[in-house]
């Protein structure tokens, strides 16, 4: 333990606590910029500097550990001058078009400038004039806005194990870019979008596709159908000013109708469908001897990561399309037929917590209906923008129901949005399909929560099935390396690219951090608990789909519409040119 005096107040904290944390215990909020609660300390912005008695240098509160009897002052003339000069240095090298920026009013740099009352920047304003990177359908990088805080670097390396973004160059020419200054499309990027959550400013953002949706909505020849992903109903409120952890399924449906969507259906429906198909695939592989473990395929960030880094394990990945793409394939076939609409007139939009979904929708193999199955993917943030522009009074909207025939879902689908959710949903179905018995308890607590890698064993009759769950790509990499090295044996592995699962997706509201990911996930489990139907195979609309259209799980129609294949990709930049 150490007793520290900060601005004259004493506090007792554990040795090794940073000055920043100790100050927060005293309700002293030292300003920070490069600090992120979930990421390795950077200590590069030097905004959180404080005075320590007896030390010549000002030290960064975010990184400096307290010592017993240390006396710290956080708001002296010297500290204020240093903070302001460092912030001036950043601002003088950052664009000033805040009003047009995607992060306007949700920007940590802007907030800091306001908090420190910056009214003047004495250094000559200059920009680097760096090229915009719009090479991928998912993420837009605007390196001119980058303040080189390196949070995205830590996120990409430590949490997502992709190490796509890295500082290059020296001095003022330092930029954070993909390897060899390539475009994102040319490197082994999963397109998970976690870098967006790490970015304090607008240097990295989702590709904005709202205009495409507005155009379709305004086109009288288009029948615009939207699907809502499990994790969006728990986050969309945050876009409209509500605190995290509130589920707004009914209001979300109502809002989408008011925006002009012709049909509002539910990805949860195809989540249930995924469970049926994937569950049968698992049982089939167990019966026919593999390859095992079967690895889930719902998360397109994981899929792309796997294609780059685990091409040798692609046979293990379930051939099931993700719920988004199952929905996309069905909306232009099953639904089109049922509603008597020419599929060419259907414009299929999905609302997703995810940036990688934009890439997934544009994969050439995702056109089973004869058309691109999902025309546009909107992230939670883009829909938030559309709703705010339209002036939707979210709080006072009525709760409305999703449309048929792909609007009914179960609790099993609801928890798809949280890490462990797909596994739990699958276990509920696989157990009952395999054994013909009712589950004694439907809740699999050991697969829930934010532990990086979770494991469980389930008895299917007399067979012990071992399952593993990983979320975040670094954890995923760990579990897959264990599989590759035969250190661990599983029958079934759930992988979600984003920490916390889809609730923490790269398309979710900003801020998204571990605390918020946890809150959103818990809300999904609560929603599951309250739903009347909690097992995918109990979903009557799914039963109807099989009776009317698919005939049987893993059948010929399923094979054609609901299953896919993967592409081996390199972990090195694609072009043969040498770096330099």
């Amino acid at each position, binding site marked *: 333990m150490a007793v520290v005096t900060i601005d004259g107040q004493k506090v007792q904290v554990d040795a090794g606590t940073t000055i920043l944390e100790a100050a927060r215990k005293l309700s002293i909020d030292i300003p920070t910029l490069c600090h992120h609660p979930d990421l390795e*300390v950077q*200590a*590069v*912005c*030097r*905004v959180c*500097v404080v005075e320590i008695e007896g030390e*010549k*240098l*000002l030290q*960064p509160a975010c*990184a*400096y*550990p307290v010592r017993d009897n240390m006396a710290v002052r956080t708001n002296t003339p*010297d500290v204020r*001058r*240093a903070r302001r*000069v*460092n912030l001036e*240095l*950043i601002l*003088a*090298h950052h664009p000033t078009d805040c009003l047009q920026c995607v992060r306007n009013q949700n920007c940590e740099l802007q907030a800091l400038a306001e908090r420190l009352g910056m009214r003047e920047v*004495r*250094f*000559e304003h200059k920009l680097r004039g760096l090229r915009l990177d719009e090479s991928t359908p998912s993420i837009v990088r605007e390196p001119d806005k980058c303040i*080189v805080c390196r949070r995205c670097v830590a996120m990409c390396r430590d949490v997502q194990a992709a190490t796509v973004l*890295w*500082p290059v*160059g*020296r*001095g*003022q*020419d*330092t930029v954070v870019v993909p390897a060899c200054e390539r475009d994102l499309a040319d490197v082994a990027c999963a397109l998970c979008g976690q870098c967006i959550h790490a970015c304090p400013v607008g240097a990295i953002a989702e590709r904005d596709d709202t205009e495409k949706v507005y155009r379709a909505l305004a086109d009288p020849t288009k029948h615009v159908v939207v699907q809502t992903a499990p994790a969006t109903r728990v986050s969309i409120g945050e876009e409209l000013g509500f605190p995290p952890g509130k589920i707004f399924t009914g209001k979300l449906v109502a809002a989408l109708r008011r925006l002009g969507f012709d049909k509002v259906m539910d990805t949860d429906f195809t989540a249930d469908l995924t469970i049926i198909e994937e569950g049968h695939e698992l049982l089939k592989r167990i019966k026919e001897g593999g390859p095992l473990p079967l690895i889930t395929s719902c998360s397109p960030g994981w899929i792309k990561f796997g294609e780059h880094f685990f091409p040798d394990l692609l046979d293990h990945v379930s051939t099931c399309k993700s719920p988004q793409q199952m929905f996309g394939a069905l909306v232009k076939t099953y639904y089109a037929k049922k509603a008597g609409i020419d599929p060419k007139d259907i414009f299929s939009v999905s609302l997703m917590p995810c940036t990688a979904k934009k890439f997934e929708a544009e994969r050439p193999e995702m056109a089973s209906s004869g058309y691109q199955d999902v025309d546009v993917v909107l992230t939670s943030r883009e829909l938030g923008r559309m709703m705010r522009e339209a002036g939707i009074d979210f709080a006072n909207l009525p709760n409305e129901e999703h449309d048929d025939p792909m609007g009914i879902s179960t609790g099993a689908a609801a928890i798809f949005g949280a890490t462990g959710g797909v596994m739990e949903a699958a276990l509920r179905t696989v157990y009952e399909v395999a054994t013909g018995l009712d589950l004694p308890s439907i809740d699999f607590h050991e697969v829930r929560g934010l532990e990086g890698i979770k494991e469980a064993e389930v008895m299917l009759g007399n067979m012990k099935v071992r399952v593993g769950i990983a979320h975040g790509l670094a954890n995923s990499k760990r579990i897959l390396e264990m599989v590759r090295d035969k250190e661990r044996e599983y029958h079934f592995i759930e992988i979600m690219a984003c920490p916390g699962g889809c609730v923490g997706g790269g398309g979710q509201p900003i801020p998204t951090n571990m605390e918020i990911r946890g809150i959103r996930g818990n809300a999904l489990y609560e929603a599951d608990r309250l739903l009347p139907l909690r097992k995918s195979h109990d979903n009557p609309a799914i039963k109807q789909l099989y009776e009317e259209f698919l005939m049987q799980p893993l059948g010929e129609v399923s094979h054609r519409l609901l299953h896919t294949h993967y592409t081996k990709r390199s972990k090195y930049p694609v072009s043969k040119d040498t770096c330099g």
Partner: protein
Amino acid sequence: MRFYRSHVLVCGGTPCVLEGCTAVRDALIGELKRLGLDEEVRVVETGCLGPCDLGPVIVVYPEGTLYEKVKVSDVPRIVEEHLLKGRIVRSLTGEGRVLGIARYEEPQYLEVQERIVLRNCGIIDPSSIEEYIAADGYRALAKCLTEMEPSDVIEVVKESGLVGRGGAAFPTGLKWNFTAKADADEKFIICNADEGEPGTFKDRLILEGDPHSIIEAMAIAGYAVGANRGFVYIRGEYGLSIDRINEGIKQAKAMGLLGEDILGSGFSFDIEIRRGAGAYVCGEETALIESMEGGRGEPRVKPPYPSTHGFLGKPTVVNNVETLANIPPIILDGSDWFRGFGTSRCPGTKVFTMTGDINCKGLIEVPMGITLRKIIYEIGGGIPGGRKFKMAQTGGTSGGCLPAEMLDVPMDYFTLPEMGSALGSGALLIMDDSHCIVDIAESFMRFFASESCGKCVPCREGTARLHDIVKKLAEGNGTGEDIRLLEDLSHTMQRTALCGLGQSAPVPIMTMLKYFRDEFESHIKDRLCPTGTCRL
């Protein structure tokens, strides 16, 4: 062992190599052979002799005659007259020329110096371990291994008052003690030979001239702290140093002075070389370690320090070349002996490299606390062309610029910082009154802007801004507001930059503004350069 009546030492330091000493050496050997003197006179290529701008330099012993700027065409005369007939060729000695000395040990040159670090440089053949051993080499290591406990070794180094000679002046014994006390399965010794400070070349000349002193010192450090592996992180361009160290490691291993079970003591120590790729910042110890681990050359956040969390996260001692070169004599002669040199606050000697407007440029070693005046006018032979002294920058490009009023300030690690400067690495840049201070500032700041690693804001952005503003002043477009901004920025960089690079980059500016403010102001107010030499 063969006895020779004469030895001819040919300086093999890089400056002399560049001036053609290798051809001179070959000519000497050929000429001696032709006259049948090769059994009587031995030619030895040594490390740096010191007067680097007088190369190629040779010294003939036992007379100690110094021949400077020797050309191949001078060789027959030297051999025939001096080595055959015993008549010194006065016209080729320094007498009456730049240095004004005929003998290497002349009072004006070598006698003012105290050579601890450079004890063997220019005297022994650096490629011969036998010559090193004959000069007491490896006796200190043997003493440690056979007579001293590791803690005794640390105690002696602590008591000697030796502080790091790379610039930071951290007490060496204390550093060793931290690592010795740290609990770990593996520890490392790193010799920091990434000498990148402009105008500094002492480490190179020590490595070239006396590589075994570094190898021995590293082994002693390893014994003291409990490390069995050492690395010499050396500037990639230092080809000759790298060859000499590699050769030295091989020789020491062959003699059982390095490797497994040294001298039967049970202590094992091995050394490898790591070549730096040219980043200035990699001389900073944590950036050096980051680079050794294969990362971008960038400093790490401290604490924790390398002494407990260094290379591969293990306790690591990082010592500068010159610091290490002091170790064997300290072990052999004791801390009291060492404290007999220099000042009480700062014992020992300092190696300086003199460059700029000074008659005798090169490598010298003097007691700590010597004055600038003594260095410049006694050892360095004063300012050429009878010009006036304007300023001396001590400590390299990140050091302070001191005016004539400071010529009598004692040069040590504690006094200079009080003057706003630093002793730093020991680079000494002398400038006469023909230079414009603002122009000089601009060139210094350009250096830092291109060498900042880009990690922390004050250095990444600040170094470029310092350069921008000084450039504006140099072009005559500055205002008084710019001076205030320079001061604000400098102050912030000094106190908030992540490592020594950003913290010291503003030092020259701060001292220039302190001692030569008028000159800045006339660039602003009158748009006039008082020296009349700059672009204005």
